[in-house]
């Protein structure tokens, strides 16, 4: 059997769900029609710290159409176990416990769900929700990281001997005194505000109980986790929870965890003995799921006059909630990105009256690399070295953190080709030296990196006797194109025409998929699909080779290959038969194999990361300070590309998100009340069409046999990482102003 992937992979393929999405036929969580559904609307706390003294639901209950109002006083009791003893939610922080929604009267943050109103219609529920009267015992909120920084602590997870997510709090490499011995030093502090994912689809759940079993249509990035979580919280077997989530209207990390709302929806459905649809409003979303945490980072770099780094110090502090220790890989990229012999990284948390943060696109790395690659740029100017040359000189040929070889790395090629396409050579070294009339022109660049993750995943492949096949896994597709990628990987492994293979995902009755995050879906689910397809193909071939009626009788697997759904001898292509013929002869409708696919020990042998480079040209209005992105060229080395079309879109999307991070996005807190003031898409600015120029992207093809069976690294995160730094570096080049506090709004450039 020919087990190598064929070169057909990587060709541009249109999305298989494209037609449904452009006709309005794709149904997202809140759009499934469920008979007799009632509407739930959340009531949120209006203080950030304290407790509920009393909550009066009489007016709400007597409003027209209202069926029930649940508060901590009457909601069904559920179980939120303490971690790490019991993992209830595999994306949650290792230490802490879920927000005990509607279980007691404690207020942990402003905008915390404290009641749900269930009514016949949405309008009735929305109105009645405003009639719930709450009296609080209020304590002053603590939401400002800087005010609490004296209480910063190393996360317990980071102190664990073998941190499950590999995020030790403190790592020292080489000489801890190296910075003080350096010839040239940069030592600066960088601040990134809270950023909120703001996917276009609202968090939504439709929950329905039937004979003690729970069915939920839910917006989630991990069907299996939501299933397991709800089972544990409600104390029922996993098999009694059915999660359906075929389409996810963007998420960017916000739906990695099952937050309070699916629990509340299921509680409400149980209480009213009817299906309940709960859609979280846009302003409520800002506190109903996590966010990119507010971070303050100190980066100090020491170098010789030749620009070679001799010391890196990166100390990052992030905010977390009162009840969970959310950790991110904030300083991890610094440990591996540049070849400094000496490196100190420290990671600290500060608690506050906020919702627990959660990974937002390029989590950790995008914040950390903004600081690191801004500092590298600052050092380059100080040394009068071209910023690109600075990075090339400090290129790491093996992983500086552990000495392991890279499984593959094409960063130098990303730099080289990116610079060529972008025209980096036209750049003048001095800041504020390029002008076009009243506009200051700036060219900047930065490095992108993100670890390659592969998680356990299961998949089933089934070949039918009509010559078609299906590949299945309970994976999610929030937009990158999993529907399409699974099909491509399946068709290739099965040696069948693309049109004969379809994919199924987003349903907990399918074999368990991995979390749809960390840029690991293709590596994990794709590998599982690949393995399942090879296994079912082998099983089918065995039916033929032992069968005297088959032209392949007696052949061994090594002598046989397949094309277009037909096995044949490598030595004589006329001797063969189709998959369908084998099945029909055996009176089988179909044949299938389910595999549980897990990573091997490759992580012990190789350091596995995707790398890339972003080149950005900005135009800054010299008087008004407004920044416009004129051009972006991004080059990414991300292993084997499954579908060029969707993969390029992922880069585009990452860059657009990074532009938002650089120039626009900030969730603003009024610390007096601990309340977000701009919880809307009108005042939390994400890029609009007019902000985004044509974007150019390319891949450096990598043949990586080490990362996973299909050789794929992720794209979604790495393309985001570094974008904000590249923009900030371009703004400095244009203006001579170094903005270390995101976003770079025009007031900072006046």
């Amino acid at each position, binding site marked *: 059997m020919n087990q190598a992937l064929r070169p057909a992979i990587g060709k541009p393929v249109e999305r298989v769900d494209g037609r449904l999405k452009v006709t309005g036929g794709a149904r997202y969580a809140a759009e499934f029609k469920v008979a007799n559904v009632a509407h739930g609307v959340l009531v949120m706390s209006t203080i950030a710290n304290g407790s509920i003294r009393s909550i009066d639901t009489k007016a709400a209950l007597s409003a027209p159409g209202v069926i029930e109002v649940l508060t901590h006083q009457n909601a069904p009791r559920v179980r939120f176990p303490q971690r790490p003893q019991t993992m209830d939610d595999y994306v949650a922080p290792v230490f802490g416990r879920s927000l005990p929604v509607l279980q007691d009267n404690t207020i942990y943050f402003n905008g915390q769900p404290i009641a749900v109103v269930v009514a016949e219609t949405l309008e009735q529920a929305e*109105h009645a929700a405003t009639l719930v009267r709450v009296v609080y015992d209020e304590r002053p909120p603590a939401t400002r990281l800087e005010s609490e920084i004296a209480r910063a602590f190393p996360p317990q997870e980071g102190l664990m001997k073998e941190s499950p997510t590999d995020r030790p709090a403190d790592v020292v490499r080489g000489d801890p005194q190296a910075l003080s011995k350096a010839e040239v030093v940069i030592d600066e502090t960088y601040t990134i505000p809270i950023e909120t994912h703001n996917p276009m689809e609202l968090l939504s759940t439709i929950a329905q109980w039937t004979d003690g079993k729970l069915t939920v249509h839910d917006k989630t990035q991990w069907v299996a986790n939501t299933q397991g979580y709800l089972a544990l919280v409600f104390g029922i077997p996993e098999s009694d929870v059915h999660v359906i989530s075929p389409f996810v209207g963007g998420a960017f990390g916000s739906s990695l965890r099952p937050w309070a709302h699916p629990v509340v929806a299921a509680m409400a459905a149980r209480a009213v003995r009817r299906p309940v649809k709960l859609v979280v409003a846009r302003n409520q979303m800002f506190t109903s799921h996590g966010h990119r945490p507010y971070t303050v980072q100190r980066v100090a770099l020491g170098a010789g006059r030749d620009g070679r780094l001799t010391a890196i110090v990166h100390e990052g502090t992030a905010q977390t909630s009162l009840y969970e220790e959310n950790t991110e890989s904030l300083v991890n990229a610094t440990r591996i990105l540049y070849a400094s012999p000496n490196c100190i990284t420290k990671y600290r948390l500060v608690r506050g009256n906020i919702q627990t943060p959660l990974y937002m696109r390029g989590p950790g790395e995008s914040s950390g690399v903004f600081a690191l690659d801004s500092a590298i740029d600052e050092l380059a100017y100080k040394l009068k070295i071209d910023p690109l040359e600075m990075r090339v000189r400090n290129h790491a040929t093996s992983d500086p953190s552990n000495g392991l070889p890279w499984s593959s790395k094409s960063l130098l090629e990303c730099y080289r080709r990116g610079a060529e396409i972008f025209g980096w050579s036209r750049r003048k070294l001095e800041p504020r030296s390029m002008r076009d009339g009243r506009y200051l022109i700036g060219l900047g660049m930065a490095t992108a990196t993100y670890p390659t993750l592969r998680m356990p995943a299961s998949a089933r492949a089934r070949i039918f006797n009509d010559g078609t096949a299906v590949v299945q896994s309970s994976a999610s597709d929030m937009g990158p194109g999993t529907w399409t990628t699974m099909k491509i990987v399946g068709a290739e492994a099965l040696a069948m025409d693309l049109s004969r293979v379809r994919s199924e995902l987003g349903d907990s009755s399918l074999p368990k998929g991995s979390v749809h995050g960390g840029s690991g879906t293709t590596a994990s689910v794709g590998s599982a699909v690949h393995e399942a397809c090879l296994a079912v193909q082998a099983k089918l071939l065995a039916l033929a080779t032992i069968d005297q009626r088959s032209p392949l009788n007696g052949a061994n697997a090594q002598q046989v290959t397949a094309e277009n759904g037909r096995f044949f001898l490598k030595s004589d292509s006329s001797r063969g038969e189709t998959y369908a013929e084998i099945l029909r002869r055996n009176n089988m409708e179909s044949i299938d194999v389910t595999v549980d696919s897990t990573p091997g020990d490759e992580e012990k042998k190789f350091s596995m990361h995707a790398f890339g480079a972003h080149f950005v040209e900005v135009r800054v209005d010299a*008087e008004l300070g407004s920044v*416009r992105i004129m051009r972006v060229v991004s080059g990414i080395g991300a292993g084997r590309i499954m579908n060029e079309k969707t993969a390029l879109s992922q880069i585009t999307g990452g860059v657009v998100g990074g532009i938002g991070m650089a120039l626009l996005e900030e969730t603003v807190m009024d610390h007096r*009340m601990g309340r977000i*003031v701009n919880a809307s898409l009108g*005042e939390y600015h994400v890029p609009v069409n007019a*902000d985004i120029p044509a974007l150019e992207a390319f891949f450096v093809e990598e043949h990586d046999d080490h990362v996973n069976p299909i050789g794929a690294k992720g794209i979604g995160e790495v393309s985001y990482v570094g974008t904000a730094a590249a923009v900030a570096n371009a703004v400095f080049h244009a203006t001579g102003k170094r903005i270390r506090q995101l976003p770079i709004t025009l007031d900072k450039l006046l």
Partner: protein
Amino acid sequence: MKPFAYTRVTNQQAALQAIVQDNTKFLAGGTNLIDLMKDNVEQPARLVDINRLELTQIVDQNGGLRLGALAKNSDTANHQLVRERYPLITQAILAGASPQLRNAATNGGNLMQRTRCYYFYDVAMPCNKRQPGSGCGALEGFSRIHAIFGASQQCIATHPSDMCVALAALDAVVRVEGPQGARTIPFADFHRLPGDTPQIDTNLKRDELITAIDLPASATRFSAHSYYLKVRDRASYAFALVSVAAGLEISNGTIREARVAMGGVAHKPWRATRAEQALNGQRADEATFHRAAEAAMQGAQGTEHNRFKIELGRRAIVRALTIAANNGRSV
């Protein structure tokens, strides 16, 4: 949204009869009122739907134009006579909101927009405009988008409209109909400063209906040299941090008459009369524009978060005047 009684009227008389009841509001395009009702900021007991009144015409009025109160913003901006005679109006309207919103929003409604202050919009926050006596959340809170002119200790909100800034610059006149018949309100007197009654945005009486906005024929003299500059955080679909409507009448390089109004800086569209005085009769050059900008920003007061608007405003005025002087073309 609180339940309300819905009344649809098809003539002005019925509208004026319907509005007299307590806590009743006219509903036109709905792009602001419905938004506010969804957030419980507005809680009318009755809505009078005036969308079917015959107030959508845009007609010549002695060389000026009469803009029907119910003409859509998009239709107004794109009306050929508006584009020719008052390009400033076209530019200002098209700088605001989005195409979808402009297709629903009406001219009268544009005047009646309420502030975009965060504290006004969130019923969990204090706001004297929404709930008199509850305090101003913005005064010592987050005030990046707030006023630098004409604010009071009660309210530092800004008026969100772009169109109104241009209307202020061109000395538009608001025509209203009430129980006592018709009257006109000069645009400068239509919106109010917050003072001690920030809950009252305009001098329109509760039982009056806006029927039209008149643009005087005399203001067509600015058509060759006008520009609406909007400075905002993103390139489109965002409210102004600062905006400037500039109109110049220039002959032989000398400014015969100037009009300058600003948005995003006050509780009402802010007419920069001192700037106009500094421009009238002067050479249309950069030095003059800088002097005008200095004059315009006299008396501006910033907070920790919006102090930048003073310098930004100065620079925006210079830019807007420069472009206006250059036949409205970017320089």
